[in-house]
C-alpha cells in the first residue's frame, strides 16, 4: 500500500518535471537571435557544448572589420566549399559591406546556392546539428544558414538481396537525399510528392513519404502521416524496421506486414501503381505500403524476361515456396501413417530407420541449418569455403553414416530450405519457416487432423491479419479475379493498364 502511494507520488513528480521541461523547451523556441553577437554566443556555446565536444566547432572570424561567428559540425562540412566561401568574404573591403551587411552578403557575396535566413536560436541549433554552416554577424538580427553538408556515404550499388541478371544496377544508399533523387530520376512527374517529417526526440531522423498526389489513396497517406507524427521515441538507430513496428502496430505475427526494397526501379513501379513509399534517412531499404502476402512473392527479375518466361519463373518460385512450407509435414504424415500413401508414391518413406524418430531428426536438422545460416552470415569470406566444406561433407555425410539422420530427411530438409532461399523476401522466408515448424509440431502430435487444422488455423490467422487497413491475403481471400490472375500469370505490361484495386487508387486507369 505504502509503496504504491510512493510510486504515485513519484509519478506525479515526474509529470511535473516533464511539464517544466516542456515549458523550457517552449521558451527556448521563442528566443530570437540577438543583435549582439556576444549574447548569441553566450546562449549557444554552453547549449551545444562548444569546447566540450570536439566535433561541433565555433570559429570566430573578422571580415572587413566586422565580427562573425561560424558554427558547424566538422565531419559534415565540406572543406572545399567552406574555403571558397571564406576566400570570397576575406577579399571584401569595409565599404562593400556597410550598411546592410547581411543583405549584401546574402545577395551578392556569398558564393553558394543553398542559403537561408533564420530568426531564432532554436532554428540555428537544428541547422548546426544537421550539419549546415550557420553564420552569425555582429549587429544583425538574422543568421545565415549555408548548406555545405557532405554526409559520409557510399555510391549507389546493386543491392545484395535483390539482384537481377539484366536491368539497372543502382540501389538505394544510406542518404535520404540520394534515394529521393534516384526515384525522382525515374518519375519526372510534378504530381509526385515527397513530404518530409522528423521523428525522434534526440535523433531527429528525416523521414520522407512519397506518393503520386492524384493516384494514391488520400486516406492512406493521412493515416501514415498521423501514425508517424504520433511516434514518441528518442531515436531510430535501426531505421525503417523501428518505424515499421510503429506503423503496423504491436503484433506477434511472424509474417512481414510491409515490404522492403532497395531497388529504385521497384520503388518507382509501386509508386506508379498507387502505393505509398516511406524513406528513412540512414537506411538503404524503403518501405512499400500497403502490402499483402503476395507482394512478397514477386521479384523484379520476372519483369525483365518475356511474359512466358516470367510466368514460368514465378511458378517455379511458387512451387519452391509451397514446398518449403508443406513438404516436410506432408512427408511426416506418411511416415507416421504409411498405409495412407497413394499407390503412385509407394517408393517414398524411410527404408532404413534410425535410432532417432523422424520428427526429432527434422527438428535437429532445422535447428542445425539455422545455426549454419547464421554462421554463414557472420563468417568472413576467406573462411566461407572452409565452412561450406564442413557443412556439406562433415555434417551431411557423416551424420548419415553415424546414424543421426535418414538420407530422405536430408533430401526433404534441403528442398524445404532451398524453397526458403528462393523466396524473394528474406523476411517472408523466415516467417514461412516458423509456419513450417508449427505444422510439423501439429502433425507430429495430432497426425492428419493436426495437419489439416494447422493449415486451417494458419489461413484464418493470415486472413484476419490487416496491415494498414489492407487484408493480408488479398487477392486470394478476399478474392479478386483480375488481381489473382495478375499474380498467377506475369502479364505483358501493355495489358496491365489498370491499377490494383487494393491501393484504392483515385484513378484506376494507367496512362
Amino acid at each position, binding site marked *: 500500500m505504502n509503496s504504491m502511494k510512493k510510486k504515485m507520488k513519484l509519478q506525479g513528480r515526474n509529470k511535473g518535471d516533464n511539464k517544466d521541461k516542456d515549458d523550457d523547451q517552449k521558451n527556448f523556441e521563442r528566443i530570437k537571435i540577438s543583435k549582439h553577437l556576444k549574447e548569441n554566443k553566450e546562449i549557444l556555446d554552453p547549449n551545444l557544448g562548444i569546447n566540450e565536444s570536439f566535433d561541433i566547432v565555433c570559429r570566430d572570424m573578422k571580415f572587413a572589420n566586422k565580427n562573425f561567428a561560424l558554427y558547424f559540425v566538422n565531419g559534415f562540412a565540406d572543406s572545399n566549399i567552406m574555403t571558397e566561401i571564406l576566400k570570397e568574404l576575406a577579399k571584401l573591403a569595409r565599404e562593400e559591406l556597410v550598411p546592410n551587411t547581411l543583405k549584401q552578403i546574402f545577395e551578392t557575396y556569398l558564393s553558394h546556392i543553398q542559403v537561408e535566413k533564420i530568426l531564432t536560436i532554436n532554428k540555428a541549433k537544428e541547422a548546426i546539428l544537421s550539419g549546415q554552416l550557420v553564420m552569425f554577424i555582429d549587429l544583425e538580427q538574422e543568421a545565415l544558414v549555408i548548406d555545405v553538408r557532405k554526409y559520409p556515404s557510399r555510391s549507389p550499388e546493386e543491392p545484395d538481396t535483390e539482384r537481377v541478371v539484366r536491368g539497372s544496377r543502382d540501389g538505394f544508399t544510406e542518404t535520404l537525399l540520394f534515394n529521393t533523387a534516384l526515384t525522382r530520376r525515374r518519375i519526372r512527374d510534378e504530381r509526385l510528392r515527397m513530404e518530409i517529417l522528423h521523428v525522434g526526440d534526440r535523433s531527429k531522423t528525416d523521414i520522407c513519404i512519397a506518393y503520386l498526389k492524384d493516384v494514391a489513396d488520400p486516406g492512406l497517406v493521412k493515416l501514415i502521416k498521423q501514425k508517424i507524427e504520433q511516434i514518441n521515441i528518442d531515436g531510430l538507430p535501426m531505421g525503417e524496421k523501428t518505424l515499421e513496428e510503429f506503423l503496423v502496430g504491436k503484433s506477434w505475427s511472424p509474417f512481414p506486414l510491409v515490404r522492403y526494397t532497395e531497388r529504385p526501379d521497384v520503388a518507382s513501379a509501386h509508386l506508379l501503381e498507387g502505393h505509398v513509399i516511406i524513406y528513412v534517412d540512414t537506411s538503404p531499404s524503403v518501405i512499400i505500403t500497403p502490402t499483402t502476402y503476395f507482394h512478397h512473392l514477386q521479384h523484379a527479375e520476372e519483369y525483365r524476361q518475356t511474359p512466358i518466361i516470367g510466368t514460368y519463373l514465378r511458378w517455379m518460385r511458387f512451387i519452391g515456396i509451397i514446398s518449403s512450407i508443406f513438404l516436410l509435414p506432408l512427408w511426416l504424415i506418411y511416415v507416421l501413417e504409411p498405409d*495412407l500413401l497413394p499407390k503412385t508414391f509407394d517408393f517414398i518413406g524411410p527404408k532404413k530407420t534410425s535410432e532417432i524418430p523422424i520428427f526429432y531428426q527434422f527438428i535437429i536438422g532445422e535447428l542445425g541449418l539455422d545455426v549454419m545460416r547464421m554462421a554463414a552470415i557472420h563468417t568472413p569470406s576467406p573462411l566461407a569455403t572452409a565452412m561450406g566444406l564442413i557443412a556439406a561433407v562433415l555434417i551431411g555425410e557423416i551424420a548419415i553414416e553415424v546414424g543421426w539422420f535418414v538420407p530422405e530427411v536430408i533430401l526433404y530438409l534441403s528442398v524445404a530450405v532451398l524453397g526458403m532461399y528462393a523466396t524473394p523476401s528474406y523476411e517472408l522466408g523466415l516467417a514461412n519457416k516458423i509456419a513450417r515448424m508449427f505444422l510439423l509440431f501439429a502433425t507430429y502430435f495430432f497426425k*492428419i487432423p493436426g495437419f*489439416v487444422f494447422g493449415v486451417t488455423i494458419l489461413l*484464418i490467422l493470415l*486472413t484476419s491479419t490487416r496491415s494498414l487497413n489492407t487484408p493480408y491475403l488479398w487477392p486470394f*481471400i478476399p*478474392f479478386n*479475379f483480375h488481381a*489473382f490472375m495478375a499474380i498467377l500469370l506475369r502479364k505483358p505490361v501493355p495489358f496491365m493498364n489498370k491499377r490494383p484495386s487494393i491501393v484504392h487508387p483515385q484513378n484506376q486507369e494507367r496512362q
Partner: protein
Amino acid sequence: MVEKEGKNQQKEAKSKIWGFTLSIGLSAGVIWGLLSLLAYYLQFTDIGPSIYAKPFLNPDYVLKWQGHFIGVVFFIVYSVIATFIYTKFLVKFKGPWAGIIYGIILWGIVFFLLNPLLKLTKPVKELGLNTNSVMISLYILTGLFIGYSISVEFNTEDDS
C-alpha cells in the same frame, strides 16, 4: 429523364453485385472443390467430391474418377448458390468470423440434414476423425473465402 438514368444506374449497380457474387461463387467452387479432390487423392479423407453428385449419378460412377470430377462440378454449383445466399442475407456482417461460422453451418446442413436424408455417405459418427476434420476445415475455409470476399467488397471497413 433523370429518373430513368437513376433507375438505370441502380440496375447497373445491382447487376454488378450479382456478377461479382457469381465470380466469387465460381472461384470458390473451383479452388476448394479441387482442393477436396486433392485431399481425397492424398487419402486424408474417405469421401471424395462425388458425394455431392450422388443423388443424380449412376451408382457405378460414385467411386471412380469420373464421378469425382462430376462431383466437383456439382460442388461449384452449390458454392455459387451458397454465395448468392450469403450476398442476399448476410452481407452486412463484417470481418472474417461471419464467413467461418457460415462455413460451419453449411457443414452442419450437409452432414446432419442432407446426409441422413439422401444417404450421401456414412453417418458423421462413423466417418472417423480424419475425414471429419478434413471436411470441417474445407467448409470453414470455403465459408471464409465466400464470406470475407463478399463482406470486404460491399462494406467499407475502417477499423484499426
